[in-house]
């Protein structure tokens, strides 16, 4: 996900008014390595780090149109902005009843899954550690599991955590939203929506060398950020309370 990269940056400037909330104290917030504002950045998959960032697209009255958990590639983010715009037209329209609007909300979210470009789907596979977490802890309850039998009794042990055994993040996020209708942001259950994978997400970007390898000794010295680490962060006298330089900006 990158808000400063095109085409996301232009779309944000042209079609949205932007705001942000620090969720460090929220019960659903995860943990991350702490990064200063000259930290390195790496590209990751769509939906990585769902506990650490959630991006809401709202109508101007605060009604939820679309939500993305974790990071998203800029072109995929803009694609989802297009759906938000379509849903905003439905929500603002006088030609539908409230029940019809809610039905359209579900239908349009589910239909959008099939419209996603192949490249977008490829960018949306679960991180390996998140797939393993879902498989080990929620094999028969997680909505990310596409083939529980293949995980439980793999023909090839090396394929136990294969991405084909799991749904992609671009699919599940729309499926989860389709269980909702139009609803106020204040009523939206963020914890349930962003509940997948490990609580901690950190690519150790600031310890990464230009060749992409991580200096593990340096990584061990980088403090963490998140609810468990709030006190430690407050004791550091600067304004560098940031996390995961994963092309957010």
């Amino acid at each position, binding site marked *: 996900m990158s808000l*400063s990269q095109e085409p996301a940056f232009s779309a944000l400037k042209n079609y949205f008014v932007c705001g*942000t909330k620090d969720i460090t104290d929220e019960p659903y917030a995860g943990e991350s390595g702490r990064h200063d504002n000259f930290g390195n950045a790496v590209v990751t998959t769509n939906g990585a780090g769902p506990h650490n960032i959630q991006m809401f697209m709202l109508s101007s009255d605060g009604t939820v149109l679309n939500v993305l958990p974790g990071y998203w590639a800029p072109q995929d983010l803009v694609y989802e902005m297009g759906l938000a*715009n*379509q849903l905003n037209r439905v929500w603002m329209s006088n030609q539908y009843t409230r029940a019809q609007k809610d039905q359209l909300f579900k239908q349009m979210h589910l239909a959008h899954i099939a419209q996603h470009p192949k490249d977008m789907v490829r960018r949306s596979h679960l991180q390996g550690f998140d797939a393993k977490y879902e498989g080990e802890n929620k094999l028969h309850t997680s909505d990310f599991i596409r083939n529980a039998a293949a995980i439980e009794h793999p023909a090839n042990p090396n394929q136990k955590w294969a991405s084909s055994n799991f749904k992609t993040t671009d699919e599940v996020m729309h499926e989860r939203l389709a269980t909702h209708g139009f609803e106020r942001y204040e009523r939206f259950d963020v914890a349930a929506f962003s509940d997948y994978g490990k609580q901690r997400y950190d690519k150790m970007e600031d310890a990464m060398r230009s060749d992409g390898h991580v200096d593990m000794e340096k990584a061990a010295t980088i403090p963490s950020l998140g609810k468990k680490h709030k006190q430690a962060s407050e004791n550091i006298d600067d304004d*560098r309370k940031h996390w*995961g330089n994963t092309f957010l900006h």
Partner: protein
Amino acid sequence: MKSKFALCLAALMALFVPAQSRQPAYLGGQTAHDRITAMASELHWNQSLGQVEQSAREQGKMVFWVHMLGSMTGAT
């Protein structure tokens, strides 16, 4: 609004997506910092949802509201 948005969206994608596909998987700290600075100079990130909604109504826009660990200004 719908057709205008769709046209602009298509234009944005056509203009920028090919370049995106060539982007590196790694960005050095100075480059990341420069991007942050450029974005912050052009996009204001309000921390009051009420104010954001009011501005969106006045400008006929939608709201983009980001939950994140830490702060938007400076880095992520």
